[in-house]
């Protein structure tokens, strides 16, 4: 059994729920077939199992070190990076002409799932590099691509995204790092960035920082922000690294989890000589970065889902193996104790995890499918739906992944709390996810304040259409009667309240409405994942070669979701509908 993901589940999601093979009808993916997808996934799984998983705990126990001059990471990280790079995965999504493999987003997402489950901290280096490379590919000038993109694709250079500053996190419009034009057309940067993942390391020859900064005299706020490429080492015409740029590691940060990834404070231009190259047009920095961030956000959702998944599998195996106690009806101490999975309360904790993590994985794969439909299939509506769902894809797994890990710890009891077992690390690693790439709160504001109403609210309409298709199919299965009915009856209050919240925003009650934005984000997450559970259950019933237990597992998790999770959302909807002001009315002085 793989420790990373249930193979049968992943295959079911890819092949049955998200019809991977149908993607080969798109011209961009025409060279692929089912067999090639399987081979690619096998390669990813193998690298993840042999070069990422084995040092997950070691990288956690041996954080990167900084002696004032150099950073050292454990050597396994570099080996893992090399294997990842050699496999071609760094550029896999790109076109053949750019040295890529035109791999569908769906398959790429599934490959990443293995790495996230195996070792999220080491996986952060290649994932950040891919994301940074995508921005350079989309917005940088040819010469910049030549100098930086190819070495990033081949694994010689790594990439980072440098937005956050010591005094500016969520409110990026306030950032202060300065850029001054230089005679040769480049810029000189000055300022400090904080929490920059992979900001320094000893893994690659060079590091390409994508830095957000303000050009001298630029307007205040978001419109004054530009993006710069700032390499650790300058690169000559032949692509060789030359002198050290004036970017200095001020120090490493020491984290709760994700310890294998360096978290850095970086000083740009302490000597006044930090060379940066403007990407695209001045003033567009944040919108360029959002391209990367939207992808990165889906990536965060996936990481959260997979760390949750890993904990689920660990706790499931433990529960089958750990003898403790007897059935409530058995008082005979001479009988053998049962495995703890025989206790209903333990099964509750496992089923809940299953509902969160398999639901989260389905959600991330849906996002990837939408990317394919939009980018390779030219389906504009899929793009609109993806825009709407992105905050949910980031946030639902980030919120429920750590909850799943919390339950995994509980299943193991004392063993869950000690470092000899992997689940406490899962929890610590996963706890990052609601914080970075836009906090949970910021995602809530983005969803309720912006995303819902973009494209004249079309995203929501498209979502409902898809839900309706699922409901129509699911209704045909008598096994799903109750589950469908519960979902259907919950749908109406969701719609009415959403419309009312929109009206309330329109009538100028922004503060009142947005006060509960993250509650709304959670509600929406439950409706979307509930829909996916219906879809999974219904598709599982329709496919006849699945193992009976597998189908029953999907049905039961869907049942659990509608009976226990969705009613929570309904309750919260009632509070929102009543215009609840508990949080708004709480005065700072009372706290």
């Amino acid at each position, binding site marked *: 059994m*793989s420790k990373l993901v249930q193979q049968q589940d992943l295959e079911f999601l890819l092949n049955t729920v998200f019809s991977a093979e149908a993607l080969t009808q798109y011209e961009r993916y025409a060279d692929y077939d089912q067999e090639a997808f399987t081979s690619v996934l096998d390669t990813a799984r193998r690298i993840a199992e042999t070069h990422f998983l084995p040092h997950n705990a070691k990288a956690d126990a041996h954080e990167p070190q900084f002696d004032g001059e150099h950073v050292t990471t454990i050597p396994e990280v570099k080996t893992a990076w090399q294997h990842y790079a050699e496999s*071609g995965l760094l550029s896999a999504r790109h076109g053949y002409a750019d040295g890529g493999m035109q*791999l569908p987003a769906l398959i790429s997402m599934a490959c990443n799932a293995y790495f996230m489950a195996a070792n999220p901290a080491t996986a952060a280096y290649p994932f950040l590099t891919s994301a940074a490379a995508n921005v350079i590919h989309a917005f940088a000038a040819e010469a910049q691509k030549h100098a930086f993109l190819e070495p990033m694709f081949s694994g010689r250079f790594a990439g980072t995204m440098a937005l956050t500053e010591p005094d500016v996190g969520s409110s990026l419009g306030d950032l202060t790092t300065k850029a001054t034009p230089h005679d040769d057309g480049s810029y000189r940067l000055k300022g400090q960035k904080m929490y920059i993942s992979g900001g320094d390391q000893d893994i690659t020859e060079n590091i390409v920082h994508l830095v957000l900064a303000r050009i001298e005299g630029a307007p205040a706020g978001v419109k004054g922000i530009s993006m710069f490429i700032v390499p650790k080492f300058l690169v000559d015409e032949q692509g060789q690294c030359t002198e050290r740029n004036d970017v200095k590691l001020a120090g490493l940060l020491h984290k709760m989890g994700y310890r294998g990834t360096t978290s850095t404070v970086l000083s740009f231009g302490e000597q006044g000589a930090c060379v940066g190259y403007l990407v695209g047009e001045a003033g567009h920095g944040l919108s360029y970065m959002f391209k990367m961030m939207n992808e990165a956000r889906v990536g965060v959702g996936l990481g959260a889902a997979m760390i949750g998944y890993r904990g689920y599998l660990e706790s499931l195996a433990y529960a089958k193996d750990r003898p403790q106690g007897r059935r409530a009806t058995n008082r005979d101490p001479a009988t053998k104790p049962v495995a703890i999975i025989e206790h209903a309360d333990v099964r509750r904790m496992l089923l809940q995890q299953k509902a969160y993590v398999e639901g989260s994985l389905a959600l991330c794969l849906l996002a990837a499918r939408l990317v394919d439909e939009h980018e390779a299939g030219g389906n504009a509506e899929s793009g609109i739906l993806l825009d709407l769902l992105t905050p949910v894809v980031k946030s639902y797994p980030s919120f429920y992944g750590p909850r799943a890990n919390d339950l995994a710890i509980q299943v193991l009891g004392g063993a869950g709390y000690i470092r000899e077992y992997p689940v406490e690390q899962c929890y610590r690693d996963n706890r990052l996810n609601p914080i970075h790439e836009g906090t949970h709160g910021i995602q809530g504001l983005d969803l309720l304040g912006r995303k819902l109403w973009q494209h004249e609210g079309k995203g929501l309409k498209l979502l409902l259409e898809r839900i309706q298709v699922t409901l129509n199919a699911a209704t045909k299965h008598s096994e799903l009667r109750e589950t469908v009915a519960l979902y259907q009856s919950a749908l109406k209050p969701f719609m009415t309240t959403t419309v009312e919240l929109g009206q309330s925003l329109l009538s100028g009650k922004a503060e009142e409405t947005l006060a509960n934005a993250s509650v709304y984000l959670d509600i929406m997450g439950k409706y979307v994942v509930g829909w996916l559970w219906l879809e999974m259950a219904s598709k599982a019933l329709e496919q006849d070669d*699945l193992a009976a237990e597998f189908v029953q597992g999907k049905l039961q998790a869907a049942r659990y979701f509608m009976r226990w999770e969705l009613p929570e959302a309904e309750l919260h909807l009632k509070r929102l509908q009543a215009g609840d002001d508990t949080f708004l009315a709480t005065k700072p002085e009372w706290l």
Partner: protein
Amino acid sequence: MKILVAVKRVIDYNVKVRVKADQSDVDLSNVKMALNPFCEIAVEEAVRLKEKGVAEEVVVVSIGPKACQEQIRTALALGADRGIHVESDVAPDSLAVAKILNKIVAEEAPQLVILGKQSIDSDNNQTGQMLAALADMPQGTFASEVVVDGDKVQVTREVDGGLQTVELTLPAIVTTDLRLNEPRYASLPNIMKAKRKPLGVKTPDELGVSIDSKVSVLKVEAPAERSAGVKVADIAELVEKLKNEAKVL
């Protein structure tokens, strides 16, 4: 020099194997299949010999249902040049496989034939040896090192007492042991390139081989469940248990 590598499609080593309810066989419905790990090592060795300039061409052959072509493609993605699929919906036994391979050897005239020492599904460890007898070629089995030197090949064999090195005159048969090499995985570009490499299909009939088996499987049983371990207080108790309960001392 041309190298022929025989590869087998088997149940993936990660899969928890289940026996069919009627005990007629292992349940293969809807389980993940893969290249037999020993065969993967055989492919790797051949590809390395090619990379070293020792071999010019690596041909892989697999016998079985159409789905075997997946494993041939895997071998092509690992660096083999050409595939031969001998299509047969009946699973042939070792002797039938050896007979078919013998025909392919006659047609292809390879200097070296590399096989896995056994397949992880049936664990017979005999196909290579049978092929050597049929093709009248010398054999170096359980190889942990293979060095080609002119018209000779030196094979270091993993035997019970340690290592034995034999020298064979080419053409020869080599079967691989686990420590021979660490196989690579297929990179994405190579997976896509493999799709364009030639893959020919033949049937046992065309080769004039009957695959009727002289061996029939009577019954397949799952191994007994491992019983839970016990903690012993001290060495004395351990020795006592090993003597009287496990009866191994």
